[in-house]
């Protein structure tokens, strides 16, 4: 066996070891191996290596596929003289006859060296940071035991791909697309075993090339694609700017034979001659390809990517087929070619593969199956862009971005987009970002952005999109758009509408989901949040703070617009709400449109930094039109009418009544009723009349105003007609006239809103 050890060919290390960690480790290793002294050999100028014999626990029924793993396995442990222990030891087999071509989990060997064990998934340095040399010895013993048992592969039913180390650059392509090329033998010409591809070199000029496969060029597209290629080259030469893409022509190469191969190739070719041997080992015919590449005068850059497809007997772990791709690029110059042959032994390098990102892959990585079935994201500002980026990164498709604003420099302080999109329309920039993320998508228009406001979606301008949209997300913080959403546009009832905004100096995030058939609607949800002041401490304090700010002359903005330079709001605050909103939305998507509305609140405590969240469920409201003027809609919180009926019953045979708490929206011609104030104690009534008193009433209304930050207050009155009539009486009409006269002169503009409840009817009057 002596002659078959690599260590026999390397010299003893004669230098001094000054690294105290290394000295201690060598002592531990000696103890672990039961040796008084270790042989220290020189690996290279920076590393030493220690040859040791490891005892391996072999399986009782013989090694898997009779692989030649022995009870005593000689290995070489390589230590960095300077960087140990930050740099983990690398362990190589010492056997020159080690069955390296039969085993996965070996790194591709560096020239003239035996291969190293891939003993940890991920970074060896990270693993070794918490381990000792004896742990490493155990791990290598277990590696060899697994190899003997056939347990090295994570999935014995599949083929473990080659481990690459020491690659130069990466190449990005869709594995499945290349598999289709190989399996269908879609060569450039009939019977050719190679395809031509257009590759973008994404590396900086002085860096080693990294490629991204832009497209496989079909024979019929050859002329057109080469034209594009030449134009890009011209631009590159003229403009010398990084904005111009640098294209290389490259190849996918495979075997036409159906034969499959199990052998690994841990010594990848580094020269053209060895590349030819490599191809021959895997039955890849090279003559026709060499002739083409040598005579095709379109290679303006010497680096030519060549992706070779090896046919394996089982599906490759982590991929969908039996084809394993090994990626190379050659450096071919004009002087290397003569008479349709490559005459010099040109350098060959291998590259790592990166799979293009698809929404499907993003969903897999995110553990998400987000499917909006079409969603319009109105408002791509700070909040909207961040929530949308969460959706995108979860692999969401079919998003329509709408925003009429452009990305200004100050937006970068709290926007998901970065400086490269400065000056672009925000919605279009989101679309481009999405496209760039998912270049591997089959459909290019998976996500679309238009430089338009949300109105264009509602008013029919984008009717084609509206038809295939299930969700509408409003992140505009725009009161104008909020009002627009209350307009009775066609097709709105089928939408699931969700609105998110930030308030309370950025400390409160409010996310609202409308109920089925827009009941409750966003305006209902807004007022019902305000009506929580009586029972919800978080809401009461928030509204009070807003009211105090209003008193100080600061405009009360419920829903901060983040696009203003003057708005003080940190990026992390917006991100916190955006992440919360995204998580909640993901939970709701896919569920049946709920009959109830939902409000989610997230409060960020400014002092302590903790986070409080709440969820409120809002039952559908009672909706009715004003009897005298059906253009007015009355939206009454669930339970209010029951309270009125109950009071009517209790007061029988007398009439009774009270005051409504709520708000009016003249634009939408809507009155919201969220609560009742009982009739004051000085009220009087008989079977035909109710005289609403005044005692304590102003104080109660003031309390409502104060606790709701002036968002809610007196909005109208009601009384009962327990025995009819089912219309206003003359007394009622006189009161209305009196109130109308008064309200016209009032500072606060209010309609006269009077409601009569009878045992069978609810009669609302708005004047």
């Amino acid at each position, binding site marked *: 066996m002596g002659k078959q050890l690599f260590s026999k060919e390397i010299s003893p290390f004669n230098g001094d070891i000054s690294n105290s960690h290394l000295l201690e480790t060598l002592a531990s290793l000696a103890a672990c191996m039961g040796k008084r002294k270790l042989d220290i050999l020189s690996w290279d100028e920076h590393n030493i290596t220690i040859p040791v014999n490891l005892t391996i*626990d*072999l*399986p*009782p*029924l*013989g*090694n*898997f596929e009779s692989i030649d793993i022995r009870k005593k396995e000689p290995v070489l442990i390589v230590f960095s003289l300077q960087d140990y222990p930050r740099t983990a030891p690398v362990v190589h087999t010492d056997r020159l006859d080690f069955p390296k071509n039969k085993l996965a989990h070996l790194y591709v060997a560096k020239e003239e060296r035996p291969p190293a064990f891939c003993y940890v998934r991920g970074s060896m340095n990270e693993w070794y*940071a*918490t*381990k*000792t040399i*004896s*742990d490493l010895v*155990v*791990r290598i*013993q*277990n590696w060899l*035991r697994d190899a*003997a*048992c*056939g*347990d090295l592969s994570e999935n*014995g039913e599949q083929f473990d791909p080659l481990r690459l180390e020491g690659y130069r650059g990466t190449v990005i392509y869709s594995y499945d697309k290349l598999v289709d090329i190989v399996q269908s033998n879609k060569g450039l010409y009939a019977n050719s075993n190679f395809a031509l591809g257009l590759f973008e070199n994404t590396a900086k000029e002085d860096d080693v090339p990294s490629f991204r496969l832009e497209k496989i060029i079909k024979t019929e597209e050859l002329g057109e694609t080469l034209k594009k290629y030449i134009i890009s080259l011209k631009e590159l030469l003229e403009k010398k700017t990084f904005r111009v893409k640098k294209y290389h022509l490259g190849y996918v190469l495979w075997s036409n034979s159906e034969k499959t191969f199990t052998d690994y190739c841990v010594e990848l070719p580094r020269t053209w001659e060895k590349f030819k041997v490599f191809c021959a080992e895997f039955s890849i015919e090279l003559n026709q390809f060499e002739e083409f590449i040598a005579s095709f005068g379109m290679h303006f850059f010497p680096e030519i990517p060549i992706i070779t497809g090896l046919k394996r007997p089982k599906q490759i772990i982590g991929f969908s087929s039996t084809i394993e791709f090994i990626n190379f690029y050659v450096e071919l110059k004009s002087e290397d070619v003569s008479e349709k042959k490559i005459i010099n032994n040109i350098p060959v390098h291998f590259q790592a593969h990166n799979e293009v990102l698809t929404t499907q892959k993003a969903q897999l990585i995110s553990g998400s199956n987000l499917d909006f079935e079409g969603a319009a994201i109105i408002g791509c500002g700070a909040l909207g862009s961040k929530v949308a980026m969460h959706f995108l990164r979860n692999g969401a498709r079919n998003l329509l971005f709408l925003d009429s604003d452009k990305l200004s420099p100050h937006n970068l302080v709290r926007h998901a987009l970065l400086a490269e999109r400065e000056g672009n329309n925000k919605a279009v920039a989101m679309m481009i970002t999405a496209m760039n993320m998912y270049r591997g998508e089959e459909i290019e228009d998976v996500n679309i952005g238009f430089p338009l406001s949300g109105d264009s979606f509602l008013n029919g301008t984008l009717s084609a999109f509206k038809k295939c949209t299930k969700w509408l997300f409003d992140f505009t913080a725009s009161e104008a758009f909020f009002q627009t959403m209350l307009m009775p546009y066609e097709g709105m009832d089928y939408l699931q509408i969700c609105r998110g905004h930030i308030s309370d100096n950025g400390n409160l995030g409010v996310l609202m989901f409308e109920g089925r058939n827009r009941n409750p609607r966003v305006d209902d949800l807004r007022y019902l949040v305000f009506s929580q002041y009586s029972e919800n401490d978080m809401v009461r304090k928030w509204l009070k703070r807003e009211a105090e700010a209003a008193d100080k002359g600061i405009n009360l903005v419920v829903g901060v617009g983040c696009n203003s330079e003057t708005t003080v709001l940190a990026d992390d605050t917006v991100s916190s709400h955006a992440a919360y909103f995204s998580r909640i939305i993901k939970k709701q998507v896919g569920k049946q449109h709920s009959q109830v509305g939902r409000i989610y609140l997230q409060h960020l405590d400014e002092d302590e930094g903790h986070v409080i969240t709440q969820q409120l469920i809002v039952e559908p409201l009672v909706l009715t039109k004003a009897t005298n003027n059906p253009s007015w809609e009355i939206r009454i919180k669930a339970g209010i009418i029951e309270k009125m009926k109950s009071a009517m019953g209790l007061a029988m045979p007398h009439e009774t009544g009270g005051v409504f708490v709520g708000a009016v929206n003249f634009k939408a011609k809507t009155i919201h009723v969220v609560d009742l104030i009982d009739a004051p104690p000085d009220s009087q009534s008989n079977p035909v009349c109710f005289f609403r008193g005044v005692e304590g009433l102003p104080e109660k209304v003031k309390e409502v105003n104060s606790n709701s930050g002036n968002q809610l207050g007196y909005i109208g009155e009601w009384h009962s007609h327990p025995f009819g009539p089912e219309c206003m009486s003359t007394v009622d009409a006189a009161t209305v006239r009196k109130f109308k006269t008064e309200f016209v002169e009032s500072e606060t503009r209010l309609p006269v809103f009077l409601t009569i409840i009878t045992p069978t009817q609810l009669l609302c009057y708005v004047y």
Partner: protein
Amino acid sequence: MASQIKYYPVDNGDQSLISVEEDSYTTNILVDCNIRESCKGDTDATQFDAKKDLVASLKKKKVNDVENVSYIDLMILTHGDKDHLLGFETNFYQGDPKNFKKKNKDDEEIFIDTLWFSPMVMGTAGNSDEKCFNKEAKRRIQLHRDNSLYKDLPGNRIVIVGKDMNEDLSGLDLVRKVPGDVVKRFNNRDLKTFSIFIHSPYQEQLTEEEIDRNRVSVVFQARFKATATSVDFCTLAFFGGDADHEAWKTIIEKTKKYKNDTKEEALTWDLFMSPHHCSWTYFNECPQEDHPEPVKTSLEMLDYKRGVAKVIASCKEIKNDDDNPPHYAAREQYVKKVKAENFLNTATAIKNGKTPQPIIFEVTAQGPMQPKKKEGSAQNAGTAATGTLTKVSSYG
């Protein structure tokens, strides 16, 4: 986790746990039990806490409304001798499963879904644990005899191994297995990677006028396959209680007669638990001095080993003296067949300080293997079990 067999160090006694992993479900099969009260806790470093480890190894299930009950899918009793049933009375739940209460769980009573036993349970018990076992077996038998609605509920299930002429067991053939049977269904679940070949006891042994309790031990071969589609067995393990050379002779003759040695590989083994705690009775009559030559069939049985097979002697440390069991001459016979490195004595094979540890074999496609060595860490903290914490430190 891989399927595995764990042989507990219980001195001269048997306790083994077979754990079959299939479709994310572990079927736990306990073969005999031997839980000494003195092993519990850490008062005696020379004894392994077989109860604590057993409880930790079992999956937890809900029984009635009680959560996290330690649950054995089936317990196979080879025979009722004390060293094969020690601690049954106090450590295992007995009685109607509907009456299992939180108190039973708090008392760490282990719930047994199915009981496997020979017809010997109908006879006279030789010790208090056997008395309890027989009582529990009879309770379950009665439900089956009565065709009770509850007979097939977990905690009531039974399998009778072997057939005698006892009329009380007549009509129970649906829950009976006899030598030559291959069992693949356990607790209403068909297993694809595990089966049991029943070897013994035979009817003629059970119906002898004077029944030899050891001779009628339940003997079986536990058979594992690497995957559901594998053709070959990757682990074959023999359990034979205290079966003596006569019993093994019958096993070999009958198995060969029905060609199950070839058809079913029913005599082949990778792991062989030396019967009767490495007693000479496996090889011949005692005393050994009077019968020094091993009988041919016992040696022949050992020749059915394959690959690097292991013999496990579940007994106290085997010394070169006249003790029996374990018997030194018996050890020598085993060593001749498998080499000393493959003869594992539960008392000495693996030790943590003074405490013997269970011998575990994991099922791999290439045969049963002891677990991989465990890696340590460069970052640790002492636990409450750190030895020095329980000892006085003296400083001068």
